[in-house]
């Protein structure tokens, strides 16, 4: 078997993996980034919405992978009442993830990482209980990569963590079963992202309509697996489309699983770090995970390179990763998880009443924070979480 040696090997060239590879390479590590699929960024399995303000903190924004910019959101209660919220300081971006993900991998390559597609990681190298690299199969041939640190950024279906003995399984209540269509010929207000909530519309989740252009939209659904049956996501979504956009044409469709769990407490072990969906670094309230995956990946790359330089890749040597995640991701997502639990207790009638109540107030008070404070006013212990989550 062919064998190669690197400082850091990264599994999965999504936003977490490419940022990890980029950061580790920038810090001087010899890095390999392995992607299972033949083309990085494809297939897309994402609603593609991200905060422009956050994204600009990590990379320069490029028009070529931005499909649309939105100035706010419209949230529809189960009875159809729409609440429009404008955002002053935020720019919502809808990406072209196929181009975006490839761009991130190109940044990793420019930083010095070796990037390889069609590399299906099917095992890890373990020595004395520590992860020492991975095995991958490419074009029918098996390879062994020895690395001081392995970064598992292998998505919701992550197996790298499991192989290393980390508990990465998601409970049905903490996984959203998701489906999305790209629809053409859609008549809608493309200046906004639209969200439809309700137990009938999308049990334990929501339906989204995100603009790709004036007439093309991504229309998707997430439903909580514990509240679903086989094919519920697809059935609920096609029902919605047949009533809301009966004249639209399907120009693309994709399935996915979205982890809406608490972040893993310890997404690392000797020689291994997990980042992105693999470590449940996805906002459990919104299902948004692009930015946090990039942030976590970037931290993982930095910690991996530092640990290699210092010669300590044990759990202790990698523990700086936990401190870096704590403030930006863990605290934020635990708060979001508590709010999600509160939202799940709302009945459709409570959501309808919330929409009517916030619409009766002056438009200056129409903020996301006030919508959640109104919706969850019967659960006052969540007030502080809401205030902190939507400052």
């Amino acid at each position, binding site marked *: 078997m062919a064998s190669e040696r690197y400082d850091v090997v990264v599994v999965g060239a999504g936003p977490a993996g490419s940022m990890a590879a980029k950061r580790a390479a920038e810090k001087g590590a010899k890095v390999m980034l392995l992607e299972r699929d033949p083309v990085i960024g494809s297939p897309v399995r994402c609603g593609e919405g991200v905060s422009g303000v956050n994204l600009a903190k990590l990379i320069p924004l490029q028009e070529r992978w931005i499909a649309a910019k939105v100035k706010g959101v419209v949230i529809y209660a189960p009875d159809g009442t729409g609440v429009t919220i404008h955002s002053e300081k935020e720019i919502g971006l809808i990406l072209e993830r196929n181009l975006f993900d490839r761009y991130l991998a190109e940044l990793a390559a420019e930083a010095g990482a070796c990037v390889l597609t069609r590399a299906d990681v099917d095992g890890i190298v373990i020595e004395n209980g520590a992860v020492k690299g991975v095995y991958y199969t490419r074009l029918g041939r098996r390879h062994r990569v020895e690395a001081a640190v392995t970064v598992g950024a292998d998505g919701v279906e992550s197996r790298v963590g499991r192989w290393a003995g980390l508990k990465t399984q998601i409970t049905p209540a903490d996984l959203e079963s998701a489906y999305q269509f790209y629809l053409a010929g859609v008549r809608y207000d493309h200046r906004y992202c639209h969200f439809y909530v309700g137990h009938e519309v999308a049990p334990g989740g929501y339906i989204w309509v995100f603009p790709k252009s004036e007439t093309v939209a991504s229309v998707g659904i997430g439903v909580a697996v514990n509240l679903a049956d086989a094919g519920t996501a697809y059935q609920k979504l096609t029902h919605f489309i*047949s009533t809301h956009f009966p004249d639209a044409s399907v120009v693309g469709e994709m399935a996915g699983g979205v*982890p809406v769990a608490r972040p893993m407490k310890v997404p690392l072990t000797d020689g291994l770090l997990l980042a992105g969906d693999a470590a449940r670094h996805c906002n459990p309230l919104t299902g948004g995970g692009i930015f946090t995956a990039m942030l976590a990946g970037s931290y993982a790359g930095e910690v991996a390179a530092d640990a290699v330089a210092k010669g300590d890749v044990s759990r202790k040597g990698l523990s700086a990763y936990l401190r870096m995640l704590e403030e930006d991701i863990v605290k934020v997502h635990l708060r979001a998880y508590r709010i999600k639990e509160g939202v799940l207790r709302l009945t459709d009638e409570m959501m309808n009443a919330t929409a009517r109540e916030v619409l009766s107030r002056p438009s200056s008070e129409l903020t996301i924070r006030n919508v959640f404070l109104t919706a969850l006013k019967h659960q006052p212990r969540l007030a502080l979480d809401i205030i902190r989550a939507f400052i």
Partner: protein
Amino acid sequence: MGKIHARLDIKADPPVVVNPRRCDLCGACVGVCPADCIVMDERSLSVIGSLCIKCGFCIPACPLGALAWNEGDNGDGRMTNGF
């Protein structure tokens, strides 16, 4: 670990069956499987029958309904709304 899987009996008759025409290889079922018995590569997904604990979590996890109990009536291709 790949070695271990290669040694297992992959039963011809696992408790859960996959309809490959409906499977989009999204990995949602793999994420929710507590037994690590669903194996996916770039082209296919399969259930290792000897590892399956019959929890059924994977069935509602699939957005397209590609997974079903083996005795079930999966695969008639019938969906609502003409899709």
